[in-house]
């Protein structure tokens, strides 16, 4: 405690009372700031330095000259981006895959939560949960490995079934008509069970007395599901939906990287994979950074807007 006394004596001459208290807190807890050191170094080096690095989107970046030695070209990269047919196709693919995923996959976990809530046999309920959560823990590479095998045109399970019903085998992973569907289906296969957890917890939080009252009034189970359970978890549904919209431009970069090939670039190339191909494949650093910056900026706007909506309708902030 004597240390803090000298701290005040040495502190800036015109200390306000509040400033003095803050200074004391700072001096008295220097080791707290020491604990923060690795975290702050990490934050500045691996989070904020790359943010500064996006300035190469406004340059014609040359890897040997670095940021300071490269020529500034203003908005040229973005001009190129707008006029690039590739980019438009990539943006369309991203939005299509992402919207399919939201429209088709967002409601299923809610339905799972509603159905599981009706199951009274605990053993059955736990077994189903254990099974449908599992794929979440497997890497995309493993999932791709599983589906490459069962979708294979030579001896794959799905194509054997198609042929058994008299159809022709389909090369799902190299056909532009099917690739997006495969991406959406496998994403659902991996995550719908896991995504149900939040809704299952929300259902468990509903006051049981409401059900008893409804049963006395003669409401059947479907009626109760629609009039009690669903409204009871509506806030969670809206919040999850807002969060989901925030990642609209993330159509599943890692997933698609493990599944696609040049034959399906036309339907499957999304912003993330395009940035990777242009930047690291063709070393067009400035252009791909511009694409990445477009992606980050739109993502940022979506999250900020989502938070505003959440504050307005749910009276709570996302963060």
């Amino acid at each position, binding site marked *: 405690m004597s240390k803090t006394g000298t701290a005040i004596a040495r502190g800036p001459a015109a200390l306000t009372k509040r400033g003095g208290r803050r*200074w004391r807190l700072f001096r008295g*807890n220097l080791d707290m700031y020491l604990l923060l050191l690795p975290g702050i170094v990490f934050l500045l080096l691996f989070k904020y330095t790359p943010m500064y*690095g996006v300035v190469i989107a406004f340059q014609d970046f040359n890897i040997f000259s670095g940021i300071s030695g490269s020529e500034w070209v203003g908005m040229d990269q973005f001009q190129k981006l707008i006029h690039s047919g590739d980019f438009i196709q990539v943006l369309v693919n991203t939005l299509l895959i992402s919207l399919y995923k939201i429209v088709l996959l967002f409601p299923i976990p809610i339905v799972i939560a509603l159905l599981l809530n009706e199951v009274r046999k605990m053993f059955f309920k736990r077994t189903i949960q254990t099974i449908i959560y599992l794929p979440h823990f497997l890497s995309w590479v493993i999932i791709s490995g599983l589906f490459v095998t069962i979708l294979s045109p030579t001896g794959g399970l799905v194509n054997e079934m198609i042929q058994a019903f008299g159809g022709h085998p389909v090369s799902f992973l190299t056909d532009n008509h099917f690739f997006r569907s495969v991406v959406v289906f496998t994403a659902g296969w991996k995550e719908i069970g896991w995504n149900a957890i939040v809704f299952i917890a929300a259902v468990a939080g509903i006051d049981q007395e409401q059900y008893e009252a409804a049963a006395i009034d003669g409401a059947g189970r479907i009626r109760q599901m629609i009039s009690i359970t669903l409204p009871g978890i509506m806030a969670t549904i809206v919040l999850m939906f807002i969060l989901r919209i925030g990642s609209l431009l993330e159509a599943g970069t890692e997933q698609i990287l493990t599944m696609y090939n040049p034959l399906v670039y036309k339907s499957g190339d999304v912003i993330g994979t395009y940035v990777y191909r242009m930047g690291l494949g063709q070393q067009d650093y400035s252009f791909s950074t511009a694409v990445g910056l477009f992606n980050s900026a739109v993502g940022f706007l979506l999250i900020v807007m989502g938070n505003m909506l959440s504050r307005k309708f749910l009276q709570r902030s996302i963060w």
Partner: protein
Amino acid sequence: MRSKTIGDRALDTFIYVVLVCMGLMTLLPFANVLSKSVSQEWAIVSGKVGIYPIGFQLDTMRYVVTNHQFLHSLYISGLVTVIGTLGSLLVTAMTAYPLSKRELPGMGVLIVLFIFTMMFNGGIIPNYLLIRQLHLIDNLGALILPVLVSVFNMLVIKSYFESLPVSLEESAKLEGARNYTILFRIVLPLSGPVLATIGLFYAVYYWNDYFNPMIYINSTSLKPLQLYLQDIVMNADTSSLNQSADDLMNVPAEGVRAATVIASTIPILLVYPFLQKYFIKGVLIGSVKG
């Protein structure tokens, strides 16, 4: 309980059928690939293998799991996962603890700086150029350092710290204990469950990470399991198995692919009971505390 009506029974039947179908849909790909991994190659390519093996054999599996490259990539993945998880837990807790003391000057600003990185990031290319500048290409550090602290995980630990009773910390402080002593001797020992949850979050991330190794690792001797597996799966590139032409004739590509996928799934299956227990808690902490 009142007796069940016919409508109730029909509803129950419907619900059970739907849920059982979902369970089977989840298990089917595993059953099929597992069967293929222990079947004869001719049966696989002719499409005879469904959900049970045809011509049961363990040679393919034995070949895959004794393969030098496979074992080496398993070792690399294990190394990155263990070191990464321990490092991440340590630095995340060290960061979360001071940030949980809102009254200290500067903490409010720092939290905002951390949260901002959840909403906006530099993107793939600036990150790559940074790693290159730091000479971390083809260095396992590139798989750990850039992802050392997950801000989401840090916020979960921070809110857990905030929920601990302050009386213990205060009495230790009166006895003259320094903050780091309080963190390591009092706070962390009280945080077992949350550290286990977050530790598993990190471990699964490091184990399953494919993107960072793909970008930062070129050398075959540093390839983690996911990269090795991707080579086998996508390219059906049996040359990465380092075998002689003789072996190529005997070791079938389809069977090897199936067996490699199964062998890579086993480590996750072994820890799955723990994962399920702690992860669900973590997801709920995260969604409740934002």
